[in-house]
C-alpha cells in the first residue's frame, strides 16, 4: 500500500522520530510504512490521519 506520509511529514516539518513518538510506534515502523514495506493497522492509520487532520483515503491508497 502506498502512502504520502513522507510528504506530509515534510510539510509539517516533522522527523520520522517525532512522528513515531506522536503515534506511539518506533521510528523503524514509520520508516517501513513510508517505504511501503509494512502496512499499518486501521487504528494506527486513524492515528496518523487524525494527526495530519486528513481522511485516511487521502493518505493511504492502493498501488
Amino acid at each position, binding site marked *: 500500500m502506498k502512502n504520502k506520509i513522507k510528504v506530509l511529514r515534510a510539510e509539517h516539518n516533522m522527523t520520522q522520530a517525532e512522528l513515531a*513518538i506522536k503515534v*506511539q510506534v518506533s521510528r*523503524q*515502523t514509520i*520508516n*517501513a510504512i513510508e517505504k511501503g*514495506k*509494512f502496512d499499518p493497522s486501521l487504528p494506527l492509520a486513524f492515528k496518523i490521519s487524525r494527526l495530519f487532520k486528513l481522511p485516511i483515503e487521502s493518505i493511504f491508497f492502493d498501488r
Partner: protein
Amino acid sequence: MKTEQSEWRTSTKKNTRHLGYWAAAWVVSMAVASFGHIYFWKDNTVLTILFIAINTAIGVGMILMNRKYNNNLDEMQRKVSMDAMAVALGVGIVGGLSYSLLDQANVIAFHADISHLVMLIGLTYIIAIFVGTNRYK
C-alpha cells in the same frame, strides 16, 4: 497526549529491562538447580526439589514477562517477534524430532541432549529476528 507518548516509550524500555532480569534470574536458578546437588548440598532431595520448584516458578514469571513485553511492542515489532517465534517453534519441533530419530536409529555417535534443542531454538529465534528486522528496513 504528551504524557501517554512518553509513557509508552518508558514502559517499552522498562519491559525490556525487566525481561532481561527475569531471563538472567531463570538462567542463574537453572544453574543452581542443575549443579547445587553436586557442589553444595550433596544429594539432599528436599533442597533439590525446592530449587527445581524455584526455577520453575521463575520460568513462569519469565514467560508472563515475555508476554507482557510482546504485548507492549508496536505492531511491526510484534509481527517480527511473532514470525520469529513461529519459525523457532517449527524448527524446534521438526529439528528436535528428527534429531531424536537419528539418536534412536543410532545414526549419530552421541546422545541427543535437550540442551542442543534449546540452543537450536535460541539461535533460530535470533536469526529470524535479524532477518525479520532487515526485511522492513
